[in-house]
C-alpha cells in the first residue's frame, strides 16, 4: 500500500474534517521518518515507503481510533441553559406586565425565542475560525455596517422630527440607535479577537495600533448613539481581549509596559465617565446626585422575603426593562430576586470556566471574551438593580433574559460562536489558524 492510500483510508474513518489536514501531516511525517530509518539500515529506497506503511498497522483500525478521539463535544448544557434563561425571562416579563407598565410582556418575547435559538444553532455549525481568516477586513466591515446602520437610524429620526406628531416613532428610533450601539459592540467582540490574533508577533507599534483599532471605532459609535453602557462596555471588552492577548504573548512587548499602557487610560476614562454622570445628576435640580440608586435602594428596603413588598414608588412604572430584577424583588420578594440573580450569573461563570479548557489560543481568546461579555452585562444589570450603579440614560440588559428580538439574536449568535469553539476545543490546531509565520525549528 502506498503512503497516500494508507492516509486516505485512515481519514475516511475520521468524521471531523477539521482535523484531516493536521492528521495527514502527522501520519505523513511518521511514514517518512520510518522510511528514512529503513533506508539508513540498507533497504532500497523504492521499497522503503511501502515497508514503512506496513509498520503503521491497519488503517481502518487507526481511523476508527482517531475518529473516537476527535468526536466533537456538543456543549448541550450551555444551549439548554441559554434557552431556559430566555424562556424564564419571557415568563417573568409576562407575569409582571399587569403590575408594572414598563414590562412589555407578551407574544413578542415568545416570538423572539426561536430567533435566538435559531441564531445559536446557525453559528454553532459555522466554523468560528472564519473570524481569524480575514480578520482586519471583517472587523472594519462590521464597524462600517454598525456606523451606516446608526447613521441611517439617526437621520430617519431627524426626518421624522421635522414632521408632525411622530413622537412615538422618534423615541423608538432613538432606542434603535442605542440598541445598534449596544448589541453591535457585543457582536464586535469575536471580530476584536480575530483582529488581535492577526497582529501576533508584532511589537509595541502593532500593540498600540491594535488597542486603538479595538477602542476608538466602537467608542465613536457609542457616543454617536448616544449609549453610555455601549461606550463603557465596548471599552472593557477591548481591554479584556487585549489583556488576554498580552498574557498569551501575542505581542512582542514587555507585559508590564503593555498593561500600564492599557489600564492607565482605562482608569482615567472610567473616572471621566463617572464624573460626567455626577455632573449631569447635580444639574438635575429635582432629582440630584444618585437619585436613581436611591429609588432602587428604597424599593429593595421595602421588599419582603417572599411576596409583594411595599411598592409605592412611581419609579418602576417609569423605569425601563433594565430594572427587571428590581421589579421581581418588589413583586415576588427577595428570595425570588436572589434566585434570578443566580440564574443571570451562573451561565457566564460557567462559560468563563469552560473557556479555559479550549486548547488553541484563538479559540480560548474568543470563548473567554464571549464569557466576559455576558459576565459584564450580568454584573452591570445586577448592580443597577440593587442600587449600586445607574441603568437609566443607557442600555442595560440581563443576558438572555431581557426581552426583544435584538437581545435574543445577539445572545444567540454569541452562544452559538461559544459552542462552535467548545465543540472543537481539542480539535482545531494552531497551524490551521496560523497566518503563515514559520514554526520554531527544533534541533
Amino acid at each position: 500500500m502506498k503512503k497516500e492510500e494508507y492516509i486516505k483510508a485512515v481519514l475516511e474513518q475520521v468524521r471531523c474534517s477539521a482535523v484531516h489536514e493536521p492528521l495527514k501531516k502527522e501520519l505523513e511525517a511518521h511514514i517518512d521518518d520510518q522510511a528514512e530509518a529503513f533506508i539508513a539500515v540498507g533497504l532500497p529506497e523504492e521499497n522503503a515507503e511501502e515497508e514503512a506503511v506496513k509498520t503503521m498497522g491497519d488503517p481502518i483500525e487507526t481511523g476508527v481510533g482517531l475518529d473516537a478521539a476527535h468526536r466533537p463535544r456538543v456543549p448541550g448544557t450551555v444551549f439548554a441553559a441559554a434557552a431556559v434563561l430566555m424562556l424564564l425571562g419571557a415568563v417573568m416579563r409576562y407575569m409582571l406586565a399587569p403590575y408594572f407598565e414598563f414590562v412589555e410582556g407578551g407574544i413578542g418575547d415568545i416570538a423572539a425565542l426561536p430567533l435566538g435559538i435559531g441564531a445559536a444553532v446557525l453559528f454553532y455549525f459555522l466554523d468560528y475560525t472564519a473570524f481569524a481568516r480575514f480578520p482586519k477586513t471583517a472587523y472594519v466591515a462590521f464597524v462600517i455596517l454598525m456606523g451606516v446602520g446608526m447613521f441611517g437610524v439617526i437621520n430617519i429620526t431627524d426626518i421624522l422630527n421635522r414632521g408632525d406628531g411622530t413622537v412615538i416613532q422618534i423615541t423608538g428610533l432613538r432606542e434603535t440607535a442605542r440598541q445598534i450601539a449596544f448589541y453591535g459592540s457585543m457582536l464586535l467582540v469575536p471580530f476584536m479577537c480575530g483582529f488581535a490574533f492577526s497582529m501576533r508577533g508584532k511589537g509595541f507599534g502593532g500593540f498600540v495600533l491594535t488597542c486603538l483599532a479595538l477602542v476608538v471605532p466602537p467608542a465613536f459609535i457609542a457616543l454617536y448613539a448616544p449609549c453610555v453602557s455601549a461606550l463603557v462596555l465596548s471599552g472593557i471588552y477591548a481591554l479584556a481581549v487585549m489583556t488576554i492577548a498580552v498574557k498569551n504573548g501575542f505581542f512582542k512587548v514587555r507585559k508590564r509596559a503593555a498593561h500600564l499602557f492599557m489600564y492607565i487610560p482605562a482608569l482615567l476614562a472610567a473616572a471621566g465617565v463617572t464624573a460626567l454622570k455626577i455632573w449631569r445628576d447635580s444639574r438635575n435640580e429635582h432629582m440630584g446626585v444618585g437619585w436613581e440608586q436611591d429609588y432602587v435602594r428604597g424599593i429593595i428596603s421595602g421588599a419582603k422575603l417572599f411576596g409583594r413588598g411595599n411598592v409605592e414608588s412611581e419609579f418602576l412604572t417609569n423605569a425601563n426593562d433594565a430594572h427587571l430584577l428590581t421589579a421581581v424583588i418588589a413583586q415576588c420578594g427577595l428570595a425570588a430576586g436572589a434566585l434570578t440573580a443566580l440564574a443571570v450569573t451562573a451561565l457566564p461563570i460557567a462559560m468563563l470556566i469552560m473557556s479555559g479548557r479550549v486548547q488553541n489560543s484563538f479559540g480560548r481568546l474568543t470563548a473567554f471574551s464571549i464569557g466576559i461579555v455576558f459576565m459584564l452585562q450580568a454584573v452591570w444589570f445586577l448592580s443597577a438593580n440593587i442600587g449600586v450603579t445607574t441603568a437609566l440614560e443607557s442600555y442595560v440588559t440581563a443576558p438572555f433574559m431581557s426581552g426583544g428580538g435584538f437581545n435574543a439574536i445577539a445572545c444567540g449568535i454569541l452562544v452559538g460562536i461559544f459552542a462552535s469553539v467548545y465543540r472543537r476545543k481539542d480539535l482545531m490546531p494552531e497551524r490551521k489558524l496560523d497566518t503563515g509565520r514559520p514554526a520554531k525549528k527544533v534541533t
Partner: protein
Amino acid sequence: MKIDKSLMAGSTGMLILQLLEEKEMYGYEMIDTLEKRSDSTFSLKAGTLYPLLHSLEKAGYVSSREAESENGRMRKYYAITDEGAGFLAEKRNEWNVFSGAVNKVLEGGSCV
C-alpha cells in the same frame, strides 16, 4: 519473545506518559525509544499510538505543538502537562501494587 497484547492493554498510556515526562517527543521517536528501551518487547504500531496520543491530549494529559525539524520536516511534538504528570504518578502507584501482587502470587508460598 512475543508478548500477549492483552498484557500491554491499559499500560501503554502510562509508558507513553513516562517517555514524555523525560522529554518532549514526536510520534516516531516515541515508538523508536520504547522499542529500544524494552529490547524490542514493546513494538508499538503507529495505529495504536496516534489514537492513544490524541485521546491523552483530549484528556489534557499531554499538549502538542508543531515545529520544523532540521531536515525541514514538520513534526508534531508532544509534552506532558502537570495534569498528565499527576495521572502518571497515580498509574505508576497502581502498577506497582498490581505487579507486586502478581509477583507474590507467581512466587508461590503458603497462606498464613
